[in-house]
């Protein structure tokens, strides 16, 4: 049992890096499509009938040490299950599993095809200009396989900003050091963006524990250091009616994986190295009412896992090629049709497969936006996956949006969606136990939401709430066949329902501004067994984030409070992690220096020194400090 669990856990632990999509979305992050609206800094993004949320980078901080994991756990209803700072962090959207949340970067799915999930701790925010959450049904048009939702990272050309250079450095408790550079330069027709970052953390903080011996002891986290280096280069060329882009993202990371506090530190010494290369090239051209686009992407990755004590070594490589084309036709105000086709090829080389595995996938998509009246919009998304030549039931979503008050931005929306997720390559080919006969997982999603945006005098606000239901069937679960063999089967069922509330209220303008943000969610997710409802493990019923930030002249201050509710750690809900509320405080000062703008900030994290865990027996850091210095020349 232990050895089978070791193999399976090594499978889970050691493949947490990003890869290519199984089905990429048709849209591109820098698209020139007419009618596409990219909103940054606002809480929500309208899409007829569907809920999307644009996250504010300022809540988590813009330093190179900040990752998608940090941002999402500070400002969204998505739960982040992170082992330790810098450790593996998976996302749970609306009560679903990590494999049901898809993360994309400029249209490429980053979820690992072996595991189906992405590691949000390896996705620094320096690699994106905006992050958007596509809740529930909206995921059909945003990224295939997101039964719970999609997290989209995107970069922008910055045509409207002048050349600028931003240099940032950070230093904090338990050996955290980070540097980053972002440069945008070029002309009105050609723009370049260069991003570089280095991050290192020892993560050797102290914690109190009486788990191992019964005596309360102060111990220090060992073997938890993490390193990450990133380089990204982007090129944008625009013509009269065209846009061409090329992007390259190279990243290497290595980290030690600490053992939980109930395990002797001598019993394991795990290390995980992950190197990735992601490239995307695209060309979009507009002719009259039509816009067509072509893009191609190539991604490769290498993951090396080792445990000096057990002697387990794993070396995995993966490659993915994507080609896609799309055609958008706008035939009226608020009315458009978009069709697309995507071809993909996954190649995985793993010692745990009988041979190198390659699979081809293709999909057709059709998106229709139809404005019924000036207060009534509708949207239909359909993606027809074609796998190895077999036509499979399409993913489909339909949404409507109604504005009950003509002069107010109040939106009432509803949608329903049927979605699917293909098995991971581990589910299909892992030896022993992989099951090539697995079917897709299926989900039916429904949602009702209300949103209100507006401004009056010195105030502006953006708020909304959503009720949702999500039923997943044919869920793939690894189950024991006998005492030594596990195999995946389509046997799981999960029903998630709940609500999400979000409000952002801003008073004043730049220079004298006060902003409050509240995000709260309640999630009931699980199965009924013997007339007893069992909540899915590591899905908190309650999540809440509150932040209050203000700026007065050169000074700024921020208060962030994050509450995570009880999380069950056992299937029968007999054990759980108690709720915790973490408070961070940040103060900042800006000044002109060396021809640029300099911002110095000091953040006190977990100021109340709360002893908490996100995963059982992995203590999180106590109170700590982080200082950041940013120098920017030119406008952003």
């Amino acid at each position, binding site marked *: 049992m232990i050895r089978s669990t070791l193999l399976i856990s090594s499978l889970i632990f050691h493949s947490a890096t990003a890869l290519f999509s199984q089905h990429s979305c048709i849209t591109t992050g820098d698209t020139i499509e007419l009618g596409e609206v990219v909103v940054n800094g606002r809480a929500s993004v309208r899409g007829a009938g569907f809920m999307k949320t644009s996250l504010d980078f300022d809540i988590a901080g813009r330093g190179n040490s900040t990752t998608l994991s940090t941002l999402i756990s500070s400002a969204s209803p998505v739960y982040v299950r992170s082992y330790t700072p810098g450790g593996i962090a998976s996302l749970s959207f609306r009560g679903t599993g990590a494999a049901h949340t898809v993360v994309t970067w400029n249209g490429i799915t980053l979820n690992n095809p072996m595991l189906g999930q992405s590691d949000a701790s390896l996705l620094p925010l320096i690699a994106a200009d905006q992050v958007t959450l596509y809740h529930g049904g909206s995921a059909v048009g945003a990224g295939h396989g997101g039964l719970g939702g999609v997290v989209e990272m995107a970069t922008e050309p910055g045509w409207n900003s002048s050349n600028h250079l931003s240099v940032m450095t950070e230093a904090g408790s338990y050996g955290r050091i980070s540097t980053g550079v972002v440069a945008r330069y070029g002309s009105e027709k050609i723009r370049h963006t260069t991003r570089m970052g280095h991050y290192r953390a020892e993560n050797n903080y102290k914690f109190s524990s009486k788990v191992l011996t019964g005596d309360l002891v102060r111990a220090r986290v060992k073997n938890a250091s993490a390193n990450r280096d990133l380089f990204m280069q982007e090129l944008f060329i625009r013509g009269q009616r065209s846009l061409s882009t090329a992007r390259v993202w190279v990243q290497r990371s290595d980290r030690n994986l600490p053992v939980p506090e109930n395990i002797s530190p001598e019993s394991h010494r795990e290390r995980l190295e992950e190197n990735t290369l992601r490239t995307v090239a695209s060309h979009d051209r507009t002719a009259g009412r039509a816009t067509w686009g072509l893009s191609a992407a190539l991604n490769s990755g290498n993951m090396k896992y080792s445990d000096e004590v057990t002697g387990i070594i794993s070396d995995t490589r993966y490659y993915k090629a994507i080609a896609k084309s799309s055609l958008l036709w706008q035939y009226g105000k608020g009315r458009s049709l978009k069709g697309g086709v995507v071809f993909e090829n996954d190649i995985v080389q793993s010692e745990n497969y009988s041979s190198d595995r390659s699979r081809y996938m293709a999909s057709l998509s059709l998106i229709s936006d139809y404005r019924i009246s000036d207060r009534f919009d509708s949207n239909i998304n359909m993606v027809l996956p074609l796998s190895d030549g077999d036509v499979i039931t399409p993913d489909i979503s339909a949404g409507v949006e109604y504005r009950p008050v003509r002069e107010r931005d109040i939106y009432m929306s509803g949608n329903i969606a049927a979605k699917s997720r293909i098995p991971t390559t581990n589910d299909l080919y892992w030896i022993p136990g992989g099951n090539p006969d697995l079917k897709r997982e299926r989900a039916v999603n429904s949602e009702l939401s209300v949103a209100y945006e507006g401004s009056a005098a010195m105030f502006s606000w953006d708020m909304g709430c959503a009720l949702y239901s999500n039923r997943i069937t044919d869920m793939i679960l690894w189950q024991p066949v006998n005492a030594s063999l596990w195999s995946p089967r389509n046997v799981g069922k999960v029903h998630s329902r709940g609500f999400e509330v979000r409000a952002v209220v801003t008073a004043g303008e730049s220079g004298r501004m006060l902003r409050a943000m509240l995000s709260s969610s309640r999630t009931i997710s699980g199965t009924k067994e013997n007339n007893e409802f069992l909540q899915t493990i590591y899905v908190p019923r309650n999540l809440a984030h509150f932040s209050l930030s203000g700026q007065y002249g050169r000074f700024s201050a921020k208060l962030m409070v994050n509450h995570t509710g009880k999380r069950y750690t*056992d299937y029968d809900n007999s054990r759980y992690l108690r709720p915790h509320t973490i408070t961070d405080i940040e103060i900042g000062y800006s000044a002109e220096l060396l021809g640029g703008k300099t911002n110095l900030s000091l953040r006190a994290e977990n100021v109340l020194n709360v002893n908490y865990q996100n995963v059982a027996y992995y203590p999180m850091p106590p109170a700590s400090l982080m200082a950041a210095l940013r120098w920017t020349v030119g406008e952003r």
Partner: protein
Amino acid sequence: MSSYHNTIYRYLLLVLIPLISITACSSDDTPPGSDDYRLSPGERGLFLMNEGNFTRGNGSISFFSVDSNRIVNDIFLAANNRSPGDVPFSMLVRGDTSYIVVNNSGKIEVVSTYSMRTIKSVTGLNSPRYIVPVDDNRAYISSLYSNEIMVIDLVTLAITDTLSIGMTSEQIVVVDDKAFIASWSGNNIVTVVDIPSGEVIDTIETGIEPESMVLDIDDMIWVLCSGGFMHQEGGRLLRIDPASLQVVESIGFAQGSYPTSLRISGCGKHLYYLDGAVYSISVREPALPDNSLIDNGERLFYRIEPDTDNGYIFVSDAVDYQRRGSLLRYSLTGTFIDKHSAGIIPGNMIIHGK
């Protein structure tokens, strides 16, 4: 103030009030342990090691009382207000002191048998599996990962020596002054150690992965080989003469089999093992049986323990390795008697009181 602003403020209040209510809720992170555990020296029953899920630290220890026909779960947690650790795997009971081997926590919890209160935690061990006394004061501790056997003084509870045997170790059987140590994980060897000198005096080749061993009425060692985690070959049951150190009997299982959990009756005449179902073999007329003694049906039998003095065979059902498992009790003829809810992945059982 406009009516719109009033609406906004009311809306915010509606959001904040439930949020504050949610935040105020708090409770403990571990289930309440039972305080029903009071063991008397002669009480008949068995300790059940619920391994829990690897790295999740949700293992536990139960005691089933034959006399009162009830199971008490989480007895270590109740006594010590903490879980025993990650994967409590095996246990040695010596009178009023017991030694709980917690595999993935790398420690042995030395406890009072009758109260379950910890006397001392012996930590820093490398993946310990079994603790087996080799003389009055010393015991050997096997290891899943290390090529060394740790020697512990059972009185001072200090690690007094390490024996390098060149491979990992699992079960240990002691015959006179020799210790027979099975090297299970990926190996096919039983190593023979001379206890007085601590020297390896011989190795005996077995089938792949010798998983369990017992000593029969004729002082012969029976070794059950599972055939390998990847089912490299069929299982194999061997009889070893501890005097000559020769394999004197070898019985092969069919390819695809995965026999485990070899146990022996109190009289030493009947072997029991798992291969999906429960099977029994006579040591005097050894042959693979055509029929099982206890059919597993839809159940996932994980470990067995015959309590032939009291007329029972206990079987643990791991269900799906996620939910709480069960302790099943059968008669010696395989008739189902009763079922008791246990912890997650109920494994090894240690009989107490005859």
